[in-house]
């Protein structure tokens, strides 16, 4: 048992770099999309609002695996273009998917900043940009922290799908270990789960931290 673990763990560790790089890149991409789409949905311009709404509903309404396969198989066929390497396809799919979910968090948090704050800022003769940057946004960001933490854990879980488009992540090496020795399969996958859990631990900790920050000094 111990020997088997010592055998398997280093093999799985070879996939760590891909899993972590996909996690970081797609998380950053998702945050970016979240703020862009979240703010666009609050825009005064109807066309921008409707268009972003369409993006959010389409990506929230279909599942990540469908979007990933669609980008991987269908986009090259439809447009005759390659989206770059598989790494990029994975990052784009995960980023767009969770960006759509997170944009709702951004939108909701901005909307939940008390109306009086906007009015006070207007009374202090601030421009709408100043109002957003100095008054609304700093208060809204705090409220977003716990949900951003939760969704980052979801993104980590989502990265396991990139093994399906041939990326050599932890799960990919797990699959290889399994096919070489089927009787070890349960142990291999248990170790894969442990690997993911270890990666998730700092995120869980950050989420809890975010929860306590978002609660601090808020009257409710």
């Amino acid at each position: 048992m111990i020997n088997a673990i010592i055998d398997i763990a280093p093999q799985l560790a070879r996939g760590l770099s891909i899993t972590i790089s996909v996690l970081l890149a797609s998380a950053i991409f998702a945050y970016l999309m979240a703020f862009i789409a979240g703010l666009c949905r609050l825009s005064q311009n109807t066309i921008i609002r409707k268009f972003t709404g369409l993006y959010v509903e389409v990506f929230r309404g279909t599942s990540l695996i469908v979007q990933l396969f669609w980008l991987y198989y269908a986009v090259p066929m439809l447009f005759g273009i390659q989206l770059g390497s598989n790494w990029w396809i994975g990052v784009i799919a995960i980023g767009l998917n969770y960006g759509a979910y997170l944009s709702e968090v951004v939108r909701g948090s901005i909307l939940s900043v008390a109306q009086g704050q906007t009015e006070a800022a207007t009374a202090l003769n601030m421009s709408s940009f100043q109002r957003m940057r100095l008054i609304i946004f700093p208060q809204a960001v705090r409220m977003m922290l716990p949900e951003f933490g939760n969704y980052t854990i979801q993104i980590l879980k989502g990265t396991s799908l990139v093994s399906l488009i041939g990326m050599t992540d932890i799960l990919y090496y797990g699959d290889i270990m399994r096919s070489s020795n089927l009787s070890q399969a349960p142990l291999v996958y248990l170790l894969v789960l442990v690997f993911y859990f270890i990666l998730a631990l700092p995120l869980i900790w950050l989420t809890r931290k975010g929860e306590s920050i978002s609660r601090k000094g808020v009257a409710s």
Partner: protein
Amino acid sequence: MNFTYWSWDTFFDALPFVLQGLGITVGLTITCYLFALIFGFVWTFLRRVPNKLFNWVVTWTMEFIRSTPPLVQLFFIYYAWPMIPGVGFTLNPFASAVLGLGIHFSTYVGEIYRSGIESVDKGQWEASRALNFTTVDKWKKIILPQAIPPTIPMLGNYFIIMFKEVPLASIIGVAGIMLMANTYGAQNWAYLEPLTIVGIIFLALSYPSAVLIKKLEVKMNTRFDKNAVVKSNQKGAVM
């Protein structure tokens, strides 16, 4: 790279083929969901056991299940099942998916139940004790009827989330719409149309359900008027 552009012929050729899997996809969603609803209670009650060590173990087990990928959990259950001593038969893909996704989502459902139970007013617990209710009667007649209905919209959201996770089961061979689309794609080297069909089916089913649940949420909020409870509590605090 040979690329074909959009073809309606392929679209209508693939449509009936992909739709064959719809029954399985919807059936699997419902079965997994029922499993999660029932198993969620197990977590909720395990967490209420008044033992610190046991509580810690249960909490972290839930955290472990929740923060690791369901895809890997599916693989684990699919391959680990026959290895359990005394079992000796392979679990079919459908049953593995029910177990895997069901357990994964039961941890979320358990948390929702917990939040519902915790939101039941303290006076209700005291009243049921004062009226000398047995434990079973207390839960059956006082606590759960108040705890569960307000959580229905949240539980509904998880139904939609689960529906969107079900195509993962295609990887271990459940013949839902996702597997059908991939099969069609591999046979005809035309992935664009079948995968688009899958996307459309998901949108067509999940978007209206999301709208429906939003309506339900509004209805529940007025019915259980949470603000009224908060207001009366505040009043009590002031006095």
